[in-house]
């Protein structure tokens, strides 16, 4: 979709300068009954009252203390300030902003009052400015946007991760501003995102981590966002309605307007989409402190919890994705019905034949609705051309339109656990156990995010992302502290296949591990492990999977420093009860080059959730490396925050 910018820079044409010159010469300055020295009086009062130190001012200019303790705005774009050193000088910025409102700017949209409506409103209120002494701004663009948006309330929207992409597991956040309409689809959404044109993963990562991308706020119809997340990416959405009044929603929009075209450095890990939205909530209600309460990593789910903790959420709505809805219908149909829907979407079954099936109307409705979803899905994946898609889509819908409406509750999707009820994304754990007959203690720190064994509540089942997962051990036959494992990144995506969805399951893990080698002793090695395979929903309701793997090890113990071997894994993840989870995995690896060994490993993990941010786990493993047998059992207390 093409979005037309409604704001365009005024072209600096000769004509313009002519008009300007004409205006300067012939049009008298606006006849304002301005009291002499009024500006100076206001500036004096603002200084006396130290208004620039007020929270309201700081929130609007994104001032905050940096590491060295000096006050500085998080925004580095000069367009955001009226004073040349506005970024580092809140007082100078306030004075120059105040003065700018008195400057006679009669051109449409260009006056400081048009550009900075939130600052304007705040200063007028704080200093009780007599607005009759200010020039009347003409802001036609802003008026048009405000009329379209009609701000009445605001909603924090959280699209969760994609079912087969743990990469998207962090989710995303945006803010929706609702007007008077009953339908929220025609509301407008504010999004903060990085503008990037790189298609190379490594360049993308490097630039993103170092702030080389520029982030911008943008505004678009909410239906575009719903289509993007719900329909195309199959991501469920959660809508957290904020307890903001209409004047506060208006202040938020005022501030959004000030941020239009303003760029700031985008950092993936902290100053990202979610972090930057917190400024908008602070602008609406400056008493709230959100942006200074975030940690080193800011995840969308963290900000949702932060907003919840501040008591400004009044209602939460679940918006299931198209994928979720399709799976729901899939679950309501028997295999024969599923197959017919599947065949319709592949044009090997004529949808017109459905009404002759010996089935109830409701069954026929389900088949055609499922086929509709499949066709959209196939089109989204570009398996169908636009013309073929449109023809088939309408053909199915024409049949569907003859069957009436489905019963009210037929497709109701049960609400999963809300993302804010999930465990904190940072984990610290202590464990004690026995390995090969020797007692050991372990300290485990994982800065982010979620592991397969962690409680799934609020997270995607079958998905794991761990960053810098580090385990330090003491004991186990030695009298010192040592690194048992340090996984730089460890991602697993176990995604079940069914009649229609055929995702691949995969994993990638790199980092250090203590590993038993062919000399029957343990060494710290560097590992790159990756694999891919299939997963299915088990008869018990969990997931069973099988993966083919490649394991590469590096370290001084290997001939030429490196060894590699193929492997296979089979496993299961089952939810035994609401709060108890079980993981089983059996793997075999055959290393040929560099270190001839065979390793067979079996692992069983149990996790019991005690509270939202605490769980206990019991893990048992056995490995047979060449001819050596090693067993380990450990009890672990996990705390998340």
């Amino acid at each position: 979709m093409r979005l037309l910018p409604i704001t365009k820079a005024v072209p600096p044409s000769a004509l313009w300068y002519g008009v300007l010159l004409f205006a300067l010469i012939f049009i008298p300055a606006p006849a304002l009954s301005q009291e002499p020295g009024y500006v100076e009086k206001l500036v004096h009062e603002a200084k006396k009252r130290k208004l620039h130190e007020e929270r309201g001012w700081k929130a609007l200019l994104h001032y905050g203390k940096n590491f060295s303790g000096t006050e500085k705005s998080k925004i580095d774009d000069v367009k955001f300030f009226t004073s040349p050193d506005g970024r580092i000088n809140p007082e100078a910025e306030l004075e120059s902003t105040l003065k700018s409102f008195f400057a006679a700017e009669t051109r449409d949209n260009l006056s400081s009052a048009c550009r900075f409506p939130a600052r304007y409103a705040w200063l007028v209120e704080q200093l009780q400015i007599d607005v009759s002494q200010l020039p009347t701004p003409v802001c036609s663009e802003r008026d048009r946007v405000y009329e379209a948006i009609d701000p009445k309330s605001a909603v924090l929207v959280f699209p969760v991760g994609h079912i087969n992409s743990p990469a998207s597991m962090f989710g995303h956040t945006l803010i929706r501003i609702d007007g008077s309409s009953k339908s929220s689809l025609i509301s407008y959404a504010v999004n903060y995102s990085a503008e990037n044109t790189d298609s190379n993963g490594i360049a993308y990562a490097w630039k993103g981590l170092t702030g080389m991308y520029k982030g911008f706020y943008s505004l678009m119809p909410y239906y575009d966002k719903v289509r993007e997340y719900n329909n195309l990416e199959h991501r469920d959405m959660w809508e957290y309605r904020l307890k903001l009044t209409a004047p506060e929603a208006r202040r938020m929009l005022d501030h959004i307007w000030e941020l239009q075209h303003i760029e700031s450095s985008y950092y993936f890990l902290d100053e990202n989409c979610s972090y930057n939205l917190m400024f908008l909530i602070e602008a609406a209600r400056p008493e709230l402190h959100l942006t200074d309460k975030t940690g080193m990593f800011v995840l969308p789910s963290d900000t949702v919890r932060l907003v919840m903790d501040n008591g400004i959420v009044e209602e939460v709505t679940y918006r299931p994705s198209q994928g979720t809805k399709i799976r729901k219908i899939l679950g309501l149909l028997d295999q024969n019905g599923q197959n017919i829907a599947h065949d319709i979407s592949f044009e090997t079954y004529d949808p017109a034949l459905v009404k002759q099936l010996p089935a109830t109307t409701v069954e026929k409705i389900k088949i055609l609705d499922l086929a509709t979803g499949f066709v959209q899905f196939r089109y989204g994946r570009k398996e169908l051309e636009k013309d073929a898609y449109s023809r088939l889509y309408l053909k199915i819908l024409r049949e569907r339109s003859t069957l009436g409406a489905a019963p009210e509750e037929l497709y109701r999707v049960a609400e999963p656990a809300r993302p804010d009820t999930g465990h904190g994304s940072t984990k610290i754990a202590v464990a004690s156990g026995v390995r090969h007959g020797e007692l050991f203690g372990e300290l485990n720190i994982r800065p982010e995010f979620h592991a397969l064994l962690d409680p799934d509540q609020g997270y995607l089942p079958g998905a794991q992302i761990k960053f810098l997962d580090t385990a330090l051990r003491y004991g186990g036959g030695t009298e010192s502290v040592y690194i048992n494992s340090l996984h730089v990144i460890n991602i697993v995506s176990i995604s079940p296949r069914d009649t229609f969805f055929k995702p691949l399951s995969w994993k990638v893990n790199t980092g250090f591990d203590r590993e038993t080698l062919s000399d029957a002793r343990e060494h710290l090695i560097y590992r790159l492990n990756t694999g891919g395979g299939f997963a299915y929903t088990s008869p018990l309701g969990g997931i069973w999977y099988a993966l083919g793997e490649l394991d590469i090890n590096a370290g001084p113990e290997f001939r030429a420093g490196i060894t590699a071997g193929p492997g296979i894994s089979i496993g299961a993840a089952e939810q035994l009860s609401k709060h108890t989870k079980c993981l089983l995995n059996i793997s075999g690896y055959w290393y040929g080059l560099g270190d001839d060994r065979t390793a067979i490993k079996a692992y069983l993990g149990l996790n019991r959730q005690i509270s939202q941010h605490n769980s206990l786990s019991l893990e048992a493993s056995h490995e047979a490396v060449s001819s050596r047998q090693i067993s380990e059992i450990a009890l672990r207390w996990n705390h998340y925050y």
Partner: protein
Amino acid sequence: MKKVLLGLALSVVVTGSAFAGQAQNNVGCGLGTMLWEGKADNSIVFQVLQATTNGTSANQTFGITSGTSNCQKPSRIAQNEKLINFVQANMDNLAQDIAMGKGESLDTFAEMLGVAPGQNAAFNAKLQSNFGKIFTSENVVLAEVIDNAVTVANN
């Protein structure tokens, strides 16, 4: 059947010029506008980080209106940019909702047309049973969809 009253659906005369120069280009005015540009890269590194940027190279702008300028405008309702934009962007979902006799896109469509709250069920049923008269072919464009829906509802 009883007429469904549409608050906004006033017949308006549209001059011929509104139709000029559009026949050759219906891209984006009909069904299938939902197609999403493929993500640039499917590497794992890219995917991991993309999720946190929501990164697209799409216009970073304040888009109050979308690009319907190359589409024919409906003739049976007063010009309403918000409605036209909505139908253009949601035509596939709207078609599905009309065929199913209910849904959020259909509710939004009804609200924008000014269907009186008590008449929603009648409006939905009428549109559903006349699906073929609204979505006449796979080449139908948004102006026709809106005009056809208004005609059906008023019959």
